[in-house]
């Protein structure tokens, strides 16, 4: 049953009360007002969908009331009730923004019909507004994604370029080390100091190399590259990436790995992306001095990973919504609202599933399970993003 709310405005009490009773019987939530002012007062307290408004009233007449309603509540439709043989009032009403008019004496069916039509109009307009907002967000998102993509390409280019001077440093230090090991240099003074410095150079180069390789590895996203993945190691590497941010808030990150966990066949880049999303969310949600625990256990022939935080928790009404695209509890400008949406889509594409448990004040746990071997379909399905975009832009 539709949930239509109506205010019936007429100074003729008997008429008004009768009609109201019959509307209520037909399932329309109906409030009453005996005058234009009373109607406007009611509207201040709550919005309704449709106002059924008598034209001729003492004090503020129908047309004036209509003006006020349209000014203060543009999303409320108004149906005018005109006296017998005064269609001019009705037409004036429509010109001033009324949805339609009915002449008294009115038939209930006609009134119901008009009320429902007016309500439909409101619903359609609301939908249009929502679609427009979604499309605007989509466009914003596309721009942001493109920017991210070009940043990613930029980062990859930088990492690539850095590998060259790194190679030079590595060879130079290595050469110095091999010279130092020659017999003619056996007794040089301060040998220890030189060896120490060379050791540090080599360590530094190795660390830089790991960073550039990780950066280049995480940028490569085009195809799914399946390989054997040790979830424990992947989790450790990802935790390392997030540790700096966590320690800024004095948050400890623990990793608990069940020794019975076996490697699984999956896409390590995509799973890393999921872990980064869950971990950064956990860091955001957790207050200073809190803790995040990553547990890895075998499950159903695959592996289950849980990320638990001691943060604020998620209110019940949001628990089903957090995986929706663009749903975000962060202030505008922070975050895209797409993190969990993409995370869930990755996990499901890899043949797994993800759920959340949370209690306000008691922290949140995200848990996902990935199968030991992926369930692959024959047809490569197009990117989910592209599908949603296509739907949105096809409407035009």
């Amino acid at each position, binding site marked *: 049953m539709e949930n239509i709310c109506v205010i019936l405005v007429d100074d003729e009490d008997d008429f008004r009360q009768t009609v109201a009773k019959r509307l209520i019987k037909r399932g329309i939530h109906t409030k009453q007002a005996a005058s234009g002012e009373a109607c406007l007062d009611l509207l201040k307290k709550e919005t309704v969908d449709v106002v059924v408004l008598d034209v001729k009233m003492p004090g503020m007449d129908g047309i004036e009331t209509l003006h006020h309603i349209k000014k203060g509540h543009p999303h409320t439709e108004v149906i005018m009730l005109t006296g017998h043989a005064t269609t001019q009032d009705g037409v004036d009403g429509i010109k001033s923004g009324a949805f339609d008019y009915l002449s008294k004496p009115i038939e209930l069916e006609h009134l119901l019909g008009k009320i429902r039509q007016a309500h439909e109009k409101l619903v359609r307009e609301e939908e249009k507004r929502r679609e427009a907002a979604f499309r605007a967000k989509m466009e914003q998102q596309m721009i942001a994604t493109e920017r991210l993509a070009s940043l990613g390409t930029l980062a*990859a280019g930088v*990492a*690539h370029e850095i*590998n*060259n001077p*790194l*190679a*030079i*440093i*590595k*060879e*130079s230090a*290595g*050469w110095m080390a*091999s*010279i130092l090991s020659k017999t003619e240099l056996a007794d040089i003074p301060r040998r220890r100091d030189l060896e120490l410095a060379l050791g540090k150079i080599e360590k530094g*180069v190795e660390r830089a*190399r790991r960073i*550039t*390789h990780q950066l*280049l*590895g995480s940028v*490569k996203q085009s195809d799914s590259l399946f390989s054997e993945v040790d979830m424990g190691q992947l989790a450790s590497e990802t935790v390392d990436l997030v540790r700096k941010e966590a320690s800024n808030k004095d948050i400890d990150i623990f990793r608990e790995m069940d020794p019975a966990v076996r490697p699984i066949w999956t896409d390590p880049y995509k799973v890393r992306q999921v872990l980064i999303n869950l971990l950064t969310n956990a860091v955001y949600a957790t207050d200073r001095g809190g803790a995040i625990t990553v547990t890895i256990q075998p499950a159903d022939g695959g592996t289950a990973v849980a990320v638990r935080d001691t943060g604020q928790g998620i209110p019940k009404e949001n628990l089903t919504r957090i995986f929706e695209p663009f749903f975000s509890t962060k202030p505008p400008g922070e975050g895209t609202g797409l993190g969990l949406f993409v995370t869930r889509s990755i996990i499901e594409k890899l043949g797994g599933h993800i759920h959340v448990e949370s209690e306000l004040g008691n922290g949140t746990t995200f848990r996902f399970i990935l199968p030991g071997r992926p369930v692959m379909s024959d047809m490569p399905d197009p990117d989910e993003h592209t599908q949603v975009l296509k739907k949105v832009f096809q409407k035009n």
Partner: protein
Amino acid sequence: MIKIPARVLLVDDEKDFVEMLSLRLLESGEKVSAAYSGKECLDRLENTSIDVVVLDIKMPGMDGIETLREIKKRFPLVEVILLTGHGSTETAVEGMKLGAFDYLMKPADFDDLTAKLEGARKRKDEQEERIRKAEATLLVRKSGGSF
């Protein structure tokens, strides 16, 4: 085990890298020459006997793969080890299908490199040995009898 020096040609447009790696390889007993482009590499191979070419994939002008094709066409017995940045590992594998001995990612581990150089040098050596034996057998046949 006596170390047999390999005659190595380093090819990379990064001059500093070539210089330092050469010095390091010389220090460990290899014979090293250098070239800074695909074209220079091919010119060198015309004039010098080389066992192994260490070849960077990404170079301006004639890139690594093009150079590799030419080397395999004109000097098929010379072994090639490809050096690749992270983004071109697929190209490196393609290169192996075109005849490269192996590949390494930059910045390369020196011990890995020397191990692969030794492997490449050996492979060339063994092939040349087989060729010598085949030529000797041919000679025997031609002269109509055994020696």
